[in-house]
């Protein structure tokens, strides 16, 4: 099962597969696949970047949704707690948030394990640290988008849910959420593109993403301009693919809207 699945992925690999970009046009150049060039290393970087962004998205969306719920709740304390969260993480540079999460979590874990009598050095996975930091930033921005989408939904929709005898969470899932997605989608699309760009920061803590892989290639081959140009090009292509794909999602979300 997994054998033919991985074989399928190898065949469809857009960089180094049989129909890959680098294996068609890169042979004999610096971006050739295999040991001859940097093609497969860069392809790995693209994979890391995409998987980091895709792994961050659901976590950030869920946290952002909860923060948005807290920010519009009747309870003063909940609003205050949510306000502190968004103020801090929207005000800090993403790079600083990343360092704070990376080193902070490391030190916290170290002190906890030291309390249990373990004195070894603890290294945090750069992928997880990057994911947490990006999710925190993404959630604080997405909570604002979702909050304004919540405010755009009239009260009558909730009251209609009550009148139908639906429970609160059923109202939320069946009535509010479909409208919320439709209203918030343009803002969330923007945030996804920003997230895709922000993943480049994890190269600083040593995760092998596009920028880091091309950077290594640039340093070894002394062709810095060429490789960083490729890095920019790859991000550009990712952004184009995303906006193309999200265009479909937007049309799907609007399918029930009356054509005006």
């Amino acid at each position, binding site marked *: 099962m997994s054998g033919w699945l991985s074989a399928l992925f190898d065949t469809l690999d857009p960089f180094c597969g049989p129909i890959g970009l680098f294996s068609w046009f890169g042979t004999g150049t610096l971006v050739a696949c295999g040991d001859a060039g940097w093609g497969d290393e860069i392809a790995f970087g693209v994979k890391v970047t995409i998987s980091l962004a895709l792994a961050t998205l659901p976590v950030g969306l869920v946290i952002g949704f909860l923060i948005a719920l807290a920010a519009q709740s009747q309870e003063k304390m*909940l609003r*205050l*707690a949510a306000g502190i969260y968004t*103020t801090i993480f929207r005000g800090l540079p993403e790079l600083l948030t990343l360092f704070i999460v990376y080193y902070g979590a490391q030190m916290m874990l170290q002190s906890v394990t030291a309390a249990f009598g373990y004195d070894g050095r603890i290294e945090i996975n750069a992928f997880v640290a990057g994911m947490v930091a990006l999710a925190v930033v993404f959630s604080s921005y997405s909570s604002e988008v979702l909050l304004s989408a919540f405010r755009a939904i009239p009260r009558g929709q909730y009251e209609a849910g009550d009148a139908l005898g639906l429970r609160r969470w059923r109202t939320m899932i069946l009535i509010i959420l479909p409208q919320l997605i439709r209203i918030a989608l343009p803002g969330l699309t923007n945030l996804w593109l920003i997230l895709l760009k922000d993943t480049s920061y994890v190269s600083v803590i040593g995760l092998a993403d596009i920028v880091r892989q091309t950077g290594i290639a640039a340093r070894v081959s002394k062709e810095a301009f*060429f490789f960083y140009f490729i890095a*920019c090009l790859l*991000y550009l292509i990712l952004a184009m693919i995303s906006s193309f794909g999200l265009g479909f999602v937007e049309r799907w979300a609007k399918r029930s809207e009356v054509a005006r």
Partner: protein
Amino acid sequence: MSVINELIPPRPAPAVLERPLTAAKVVGMGVLVLWAILAMGLLSMVIEGWDPAKFERYGPRYLNGLWTTISLVGISIVLGAILSLPIAFARMSKNRVLNAIAYAYVYVFRSTPLLAQLFLIYYGLGSFRPQLESVGLWWFFREAWYCGLFSLTINTAAYQAEILRGAIQSVPRGQHEGAAALGISKRITFLKVILPQALIVALRPYGNEIILMIKGSAVVAIVTVFDLMGETRYAFSRTFDYQTYLWAAIFYLSMVEALRHLWAFLERRLTRHLTR
């Protein structure tokens, strides 16, 4: 005919309903307590780890870094605003070629990370040293500070061009037509009718852009510019003291918050005539 014989005696006001302890309240309290514990932990870490020697050594460096960040952002915002004018007008022109060039510029610089752009300029252009020397531009691209300034400027120019274009196009057509009906020339119409209305629309996005630039400017630390982030990294690499990052966070947060409040004030002040 009915007559009222006796009045209903006055009654006390209904008792104030005690608000029940809802799940939301509990969660809110819990999170607030969590925040308080975190704040206390950080505060105690700062107090316990307080070292006058370190303060004397790195304090001035932080202020230097702060100044570098502020000047870098300030200069690049101004230069970016100047550079964004032709781009915005090219983007609005009817000339297909100009429009396409401006669109491509904006699209490319908005959809690639600032970090990759910075590397492309600092390390990438560094490999063209002989050519740059022959043109006499090497002194510029040799310095990390200038490279940071350059990449921040061309990056923010793309964003600001979109802000400006959006704002100018948000002014209704009727304003152009009204000015034309009054026989006002195109130039005066733009300067005295369109631009003031557009800038009010653009005020908030401009504020957001400055905040984004303050946050984005931290990346220049990676190409060895000693801005606030660079000094922080330097101090951390010397002391391995987590406090260094906390101080940077305090500086960045207060900068952003100050700017946010200033902008809210400006907006209230400049839109006085629009409130009803």
